[in-house]
């Protein structure tokens, strides 16, 4: 519950994933004062409502105390909010706040998986997502637990008790189920199958990490982070320790709340419509995204491009999102 008098406004982050709704409430000082995780089926609007109400109750405040809400996650567009951000941005911010100094976030949720390289300020540097295949996601482990007839919460423990020497060639969730059944038919132990599948998923996640570059400290977020076998095998594959959060599922919602707070404070204000701000913005752009001034918009044949700042004249669109300049 929020301490009396500690803050007079609050922001909310809502992460509606494919299987779970998560809500975090942050006060004016940036402290998380309430949170809730609710699992009520696929992209459940009812789960959002319950999670929001419970988080408000946890924080000891009412909806009227919330000055800004940002939603994220697979179902973010379903959530009543002031703005949406992708889970990539939110998980990075949340993980960086929960584990300062983190440089690599691996988020494995119910429907997808991501590797996010984070810079020294906790902002997204690079990211990679899984393709449309469910391999290595929470869904994949659902399929595994069903095939092994083991509750999802126990499949990690089962894997830790097994040997990972079996060859699991298919990473497609559907085919993997077939393959697991085939291994069972050959008399393989369920623990060995579970361990081998976890190892194979770790190897695939390693491929995702390779796309953004290996870095440490590594933090895992998302529901699959609770699977200690996957954390173990992934740590082995990365040859790096994986830092665990107390509640890895809340990272996205917390990140959304942090952004909501920053936006409310005006820390990430967009460029305003007036010319002075536009000029300042363009100067900033020049530092952020240098371009070759020798080309200056011309398709010349020279190839020795230098990192020379762009000028305002070549990029007159700044400030346009605020409805400012008409061009």
């Amino acid at each position, binding site marked *: 519950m929020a301490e009396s008098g500690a803050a007079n406004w609050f922001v909310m982050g809502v992460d509606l994933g494919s299987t779970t709704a998560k809500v975090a409430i942050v006060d004016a000082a940036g402290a998380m004062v309430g949170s809730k995780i609710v699992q009520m089926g696929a992209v459940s609007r009812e789960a959002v409502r319950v999670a929001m109400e419970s988080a408000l109750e946890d924080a000891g405040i009412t909806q009227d105390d919330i000055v800004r809400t940002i939603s994220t996650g697979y179902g973010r567009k379903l959530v009543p*909010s002031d703005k949406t951000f992708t889970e990539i941005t939110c998980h990075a911010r949340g993980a960086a706040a929960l584990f300062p100094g983190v440089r690599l976030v691996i988020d494995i949720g119910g429907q997808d998986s991501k590797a996010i390289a984070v810079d020294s300020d906790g902002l997204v540097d690079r990211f990679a997502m899984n393709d449309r295949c469910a391999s290595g996601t929470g869904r994949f482990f659902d399929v595994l637990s069903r095939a092994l007839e083991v509750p999802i919460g126990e499949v990690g423990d089962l894997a830790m008790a097994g040997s990972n020497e079996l060859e699991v060639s298919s990473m497609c969730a559907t085919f993997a189920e077939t393959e697991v059944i085939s291994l069972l038919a050959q008399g393989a132990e369920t623990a060995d199958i579970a361990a081998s599948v976890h190892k194979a998923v770790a190897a695939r996640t390693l491929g995702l990490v390779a796309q953004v570059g290996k870095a440490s400290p590594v933090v895992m977020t998302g529901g699959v982070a609770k699977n200690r076998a996957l954390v173990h095998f992934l740590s082995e594959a990365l040859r790096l320790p994986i830092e665990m959060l107390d509640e890895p599922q809340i990272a996205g919602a917390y990140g959304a709340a942090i952004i909501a707070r920053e936006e409310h404070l005006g820390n990430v204000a967009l460029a305003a419509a007036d010319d002075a701000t536009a000029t300042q913005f363009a100067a*900033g752009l020049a530092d952020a995204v240098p371009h070759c001034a020798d080309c200056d918009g*011309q398709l010349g044949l020279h190839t020795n491009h230098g990192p020379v700042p762009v000028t305002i004249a070549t990029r007159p*669109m700044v400030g346009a999102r605020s409805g400012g300049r008409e061009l």
Partner: protein
Amino acid sequence: MSLDVSSREPVELLSTRDRTLDAVDKSNRLSSTKTGGKMVAEYWENIFTAKERGKHVVWYNGTALNPIFQAAGLEWCHGEAFSARLAAMHLEGPAQAAGEEYGYIGELCSYARTHLGCAVMTQKGITEKQNGIVGMVDQEELASKLPSPDFFVNAYAGCSTGQQWDAMTYRVFGKEFPIFNVSLPMIWGNKKDAGYLRGSEWEKTPLYVEEQLKKLIEFIEYQTKRPFDWDALSENMFYIKRASELRLEAMALCAAAPTPATYWDWVASIAPINFMPANQALVDYFQGVKDEIQYRLDNTISAVQNEKYRVYFDGIMNWNKLGWLTRKFAEYDVAVVAGRYTHDSFWQEPQLIDLDRPLLGMAQHYLICPINHGLKIMEELLIKRCDEYGIDGIAFHSTRTCRAMTNPQHILARTAETERGIKSFFFEGDVADAAFYKDESLESGLVAMLESIDMQRSRALV
């Protein structure tokens, strides 16, 4: 804000083919490209009647050999072009089903398997005629309308599937028609003096290809029993050179911000520059495109309302999704201004074309196919385009069944980030198979990249 979530619209889970974007269309495509659409439709309609007109028909893929075929009085069927046309019209299904029935699985290049399906359907049509049994193939299906070939020419740069594809098509037709192969070596670019259009490798390799093109012409003369018309080839290359110059001049105008035309307009202009007959109409088409772009520049008409981000597109086009992607990117204030497929392909170096020695310039163009370079050259070209067009981010279309295009993409992403601080994202899709595209994946990646760019920009303000 209310906790009432009941009024929110549910997430749309239909296929993108079955729905349209709810958002207002913020794209503003060129109208002049419609002329190209008409030209292309007429071209194919003409091809379908080639046999009735007693013409020799050649099937080929990849490399733009059409000026040679045109000079030889042939009618030419470009495999990818027809596959792309079917996909863009959402009519690829029957061909892909025919290909699948023949044994070509979904992991094979979707251009190839669509075209192989067309071959299967065309071959069945021949069998019907021989047997006197009609109705085996529904002649109303566009995919079944290609005229059977008199011979094949294979000249595919940078893609192993390209060679195997023609070899398979040759077998689909029972090896009854001859095939000629032109070998196009990869430009590795790994020697000390190597670079785009420079170095000893670049000096030598086109000569090897030029010699093969001479042999190809001898082969065509043998097949057609007619002497080759070298003057006609020079004339064809004159028109192509001029059309290419106009195309590049028009592209250069799009370095302006906001851009008057986008990558999607250049995608719509691929067919004319890639395989349309070389003639004054081709030149007129690109003159029309350039004029419209110049008009837009003069009158401050932008191709995307409220352009805020300038994005480069790397990957072959997802033909099923041309209209969808055009609107999708515009919805997020993104102007896709250039791409590897459009800007580094299709007679993109017209100064190389010497009308007195056309085969050398043609050979050079066949070798600078954007999947036929080593990484060093690809990196050089990517950075060049990013600088020219003031690129903020890159959309990498991870073209599921085109390994040749996707192989270098992760390194290119890293290069753009390292060299210019340019953000990027990847999304899955395919050239002619809509099943590989997932809208949520594109949207998540695109928006996450834009969020990173916003953050990059706001940090620069501090």
